[in-house]
């Protein structure tokens, strides 16, 4: 279909969604939509490493959790007026916490990526999984920050005097960030770096023979990917006003991966569709039965087996 028209239409619908929800008397729609957008950012970031770079990471939930904890920990220290280690003051300013969450996730991605990328294939999957589980258990044992109970935030971070506790406001902030994020991601995959990364995914040996230091380029992509997931985690902390080690549990990594595969690996918007499909399905099935994950599994199976390329491929074939 005329893609720009479709995207413009989708943006209009997303822009009036809170009004529609209020009119339809279904206020739960807005926080659900916020979560979908945030997961969409996280899944698309994972997809940059997985789909565009061919690095099948099973540990990206670690960066989601790191991003969230950066926000929540800074908030707690600010709220208690107790600097971290008595030195670094906490803060509740989103303009500081969000970039900081991105940077810290990037540093973790650099460390994990530098070690994991020395392997490939199944070993890479297992090592990224192992690192994420290490961080999961680290935060479970960090009693100062709530241990396995997690950490709640009394209020969301402050941002330009907006009341982020108001759900439509949080939704609109997330929507703006989502649009900017996907515009940036589109630019990134079409850049010189994106082209080289695509070559590495197709044939690493060939790119090495063209003089490309493939390890360095893969690491760079892995870091960028981790930073995107970290940003999503920071937004999630603000939207839920709560973080817990569950954010970095391996099943969360699996969920992100399912969103990518369900929506369309290696496509720009596929992971966003995947996030929407998975969360809507979950909500819908959970209203019917507590054994909703069985239904979810069957739908997943059907999409993966019959769509060849995820939901985005189905959409393209129909139009």
């Amino acid at each position, binding site marked *: 279909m005329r893609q720009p028209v479709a995207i413009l239409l989708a943006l209009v619908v997303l822009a009036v969604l809170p009004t529609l929800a209020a009119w339809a008397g279904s206020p739960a729609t807005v926080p659900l939509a916020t979560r979908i957008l945030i997961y969409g950012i996280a899944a698309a970031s994972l997809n940059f490493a997985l789909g565009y770079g061919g690095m099948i990471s099973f540990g990206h939930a670690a960066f989601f959790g790191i991003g969230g904890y950066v926000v929540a920990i800074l908030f707690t220290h600010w709220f208690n007026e107790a600097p971290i280690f008595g030195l670094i003051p906490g803060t509740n300013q989103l303009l500081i916490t969000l970039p900081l969450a991105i940077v810290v996730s990037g540093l973790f991605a650099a460390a994990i990526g530098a070690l994991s990328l020395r392997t490939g294939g199944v070993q890479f999957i297992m090592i990224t999984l192992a690192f994420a589980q290490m961080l999961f258990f680290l935060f479970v044992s960090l009693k100062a920050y709530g241990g396995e109970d997690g950490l709640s935030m009394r209020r969301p971070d402050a941002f330009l005097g907006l009341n982020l506790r108001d759900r439509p406001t949080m939704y609109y902030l997330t929507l703006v960030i989502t649009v900017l994020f996907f515009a940036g991601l589109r*630019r*990134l995959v*079409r*850049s*010189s*770096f*994106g*082209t*080289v990364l*695509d*070559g590495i995914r*197709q*044939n690493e*040996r*060939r*790119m*090495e*023979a*063209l*003089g*490309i*230091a*493939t390890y360095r*380029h893969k690491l*760079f992509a892995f870091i*960028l990917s981790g930073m995107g997931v970290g940003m999503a985690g920071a937004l999630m902390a603000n939207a839920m006003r709560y973080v817990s080690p569950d954010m970095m549990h391996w099943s969360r990594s699996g969920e992100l991966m399912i969103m990518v595969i369900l929506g369309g690996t290696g496509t720009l918007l596929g992971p966003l569709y995947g996030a929407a499909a998975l969360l809507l399905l979950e909500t819908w099935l959970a209203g019917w039965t507590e054994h909703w994950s069985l239904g979810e599994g069957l739908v997943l199976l059907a999409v993966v087996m019959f769509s060849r390329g995820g939901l985005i491929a189905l959409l393209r074939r129909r139009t």
Partner: protein
Amino acid sequence: MSAVLEVSGLVKRFGGLVATDHVTLDVQAGEIHALIGPNGAGKSTLINQLSGEIAPDAGTIRLLGRDVTHEPAHARVRLGLGRTFQVTSLLDECTVSESVALAVQAHAGGNLKLWDRAANRTPVRTRTEALLAGTALEPRAAMRAADLSHGERKQLELVMALALEPKLMLLDEPMAGLGHVESGEMIEVLRGLRARAGVLLVEHDMDAVFALADRISVLVYGQIVASGSVEEIRENPEVRAAYLGGEDELC
């Protein structure tokens, strides 16, 4: 003349097997040095050490006078090494022009630029068009590499290697699997290569080797058993026995 490649005392062992046994050879600028030998002689192992995919156990490799024995593959390419693979290794999802453009871009640099548009890099596009112009691949420019014929894939590998403006080309059986006409074309292409780079040519097709080579070295069980001009090798009794010997066994 100056040497673009100097290999001395190169040794590679796999367990008890000596795959490369004190190999010493050189390639001068503007010459085609052919490396022949029966199957299992260690030709591919040698090529992979020269390109940097396998680390040798002893000896040195000098590229344009620089010791690159311990340099990784991509660093050797940066210094001026280009190669083709025995089994073609391409970017199957890319079209011919995308593949060549990527090679040109890899050579031109700026590969870590995150905010430009790869498709809009005019110097890259101009150079890509120039490289493809006049080749048999020109009418195939919009075709995916996966859909090319075997001969075209071999040619694409060669064009991608040439995009790197190499001073030394390692060609691992460029004739393998080509039909008669395609072989003839490939010989012409390789002959033209001599002006641009020194070539180390590993090849089973003896007609091609005798047509192209300035010098020939013969590798048997990892050792260079003879080295000399085409005439010398043709007449060498040891070579005839070991390799050309029987009626056939050329592959």
